[in-house]
């Protein structure tokens, strides 16, 4: 891909950041919600961890873990509803007659928007935890590796959002897919409870599914560092490869269906 071809997606990325920052006050509500979550869960985990450690997690570690998973969870730019609508109404045609890849265009937009929000969530969440807990079990290296793993996690999530949005090529109603997917993230994704706390069979199952590589894996990298990163990052990249390949094939089939049978 030539430099000019890459530049168009970088411009989409840049323009989305500018667009999101135009309404930075909108982030305030999300940050308040995030703060409230941290506050409520700090009470819960304080009780749970009153006797010490669980599966290597202390109360402090647990709070930083939760702050990180929630930062990713709340950052995801949910474009799948709009995409499904565009497919149903045929408006996707306006994207297809422009000289760009719709998949990469949406990815640039999604990643940009999600990263801005994740950045804000991480800064705000870290500040709250520093002020209230006075300790952080993470190093700057952990932070960099955690963010790298989170970007990969967000990319896996993108492929799922794209799949859900794309399901509109074949299904009239797809809100159920979106609902089920978010529940998987809540549970086997390890949003509230780390996968390590699960019974062995569920832990094994979660390990085989992609959901924990979106939330649990980046948060574990964040609190545990390089060893965890080296373990999970190749799996994350593999996941991106698998799901990106799948959406590539399905999107081709979907647009072919659209081209043959209309919107």
């Amino acid at each position, binding site marked *: 891909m030539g430099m*000019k071809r890459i530049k*168009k997606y970088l411009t989409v990325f840049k323009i989305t950041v500018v667009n999101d920052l135009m309404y930075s006050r909108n982030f305030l509500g999300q940050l308040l919600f995030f703060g409230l979550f941290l506050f409520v869960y700090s009470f819960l985990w304080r009780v749970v961890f009153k006797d010490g450690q669980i599966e290597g997690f202390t109360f402090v570690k647990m709070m930083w873990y939760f702050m990180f998973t929630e930062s990713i969870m709340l950052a995801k730019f949910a474009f799948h509803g709009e995409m499904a609508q565009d497919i149903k109404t045929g408006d996707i*045609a306006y994207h297809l007659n422009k000289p760009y890849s719709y998949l990469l265009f949406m990815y640039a937009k999604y990643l940009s928007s999600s990263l801005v929000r994740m950045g804000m969530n991480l800064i705000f969440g870290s500040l709250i935890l520093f002020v209230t807990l006075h300790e952080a079990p993470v190093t700057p290296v952990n932070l960099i590796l955690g963010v790298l793993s989170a970007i990969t996690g967000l990319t896996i999530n993108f492929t799922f959002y794209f799949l859900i949005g794309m399901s509109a090529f074949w299904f009239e109603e797809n809100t159920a897919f979106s609902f089920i997917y978010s529940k998987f993230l809540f549970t086997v994704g390890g949003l509230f409870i780390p996968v390590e706390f699960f019974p062995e069979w569920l832990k094994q199952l979660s390990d085989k599914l992609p959901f924990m590589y979106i939330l649990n894996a980046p948060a574990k990298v964040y609190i545990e560092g390089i060893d965890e990163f080296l373990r999970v990052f190749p799996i994350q990249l593999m996941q991106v490869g698998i799901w990106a390949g799948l959406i590539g094939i399905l999107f081709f089939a979907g647009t072919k269906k659209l081209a043959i049978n209309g919107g």
Partner: protein
Amino acid sequence: MGTVVVVSDLSKNFQTKVKKSGLRESFKSLIHPVYREVKAVQDVSFSVEKGEILAFIGPNGAGKSTTIKMMTGILYPSRGTVTVLGLIPWKSRKSLSYKIGSVFGQKSQMWFHLPPEDSFELMADIYELDRYDYKNTLKELVQRFQLEEFMHQPVRKLSLGQRIRCEIAVSLIHSPEILFLDEPTIGLDVVVKNQIRDLIKDLNNRNQLTVFLTSHDVSDIEKLCRRVIVIDRGQLILHSTVNELKHAYLQTKILSLKLEEVYVPTIQGVTILKQKGTGLKLEVDTTQCTLQQIFDDIIKHTTIVDMMISETPMEEIIETIYTGS
């Protein structure tokens, strides 16, 4: 000149699911879905010359959008062929997209919360434009479309007229050879409509830009186009110049007369629309009698003090074509 678009025997059929109302029927359609074939476009043929503004009109659901989608490569036809600027659209969609521009009146390509200049920047990169060429084109477009005063205001704060000016300008940033305009004047007031029409006319004259226009506004067609194609229920029902169209459908004239004395002519082909004192309004079918015959008849009986001859408005002509089809 030269032909830039050739459409031959173009047809498109769709399969749509047929579902009767009621719970029972819904379950039935889950197990045995029934499909019906819809003939969206049937054997449509036409061509467009370079530098022409062609009106492509028809009632809602006539097949206009389907035809445009096939011409821009988004839909494959069921039968027939299309070449646009020498390319087969569905085989060379990406290559073609660099050579054509499109404005869909109801679908914005601007970023709603950002000033227009950001959308221009993005489009410049999307079309992989050289910076120098881009700056020059932008300068020219800003001047011609008078965008200077609101280039730095968020699009959401622009009036509809300003936004449409931006939409057309942004679609021209890559200097396309053909512009597809779908309802460009929808929702605009008369003054802004005329401004937009003048701009389109100017672009067409100066840059030899070919414009493929769909519109429900008959004035757009009357003021901009030399040729018109009417499509209904997927079929091409009329293909003529706007002048021919007027002549063909201007068989009736409205004659308003002020006479010196009361007189009502009784000639075949003349219908009395209104009579009040010495005032008379007649509808004349010129295939049955000439205006001269009417004047001769009236002059025999009284003097004509004042008169006005008006033609059937274009709006009614189009309505007649639609209902007649």
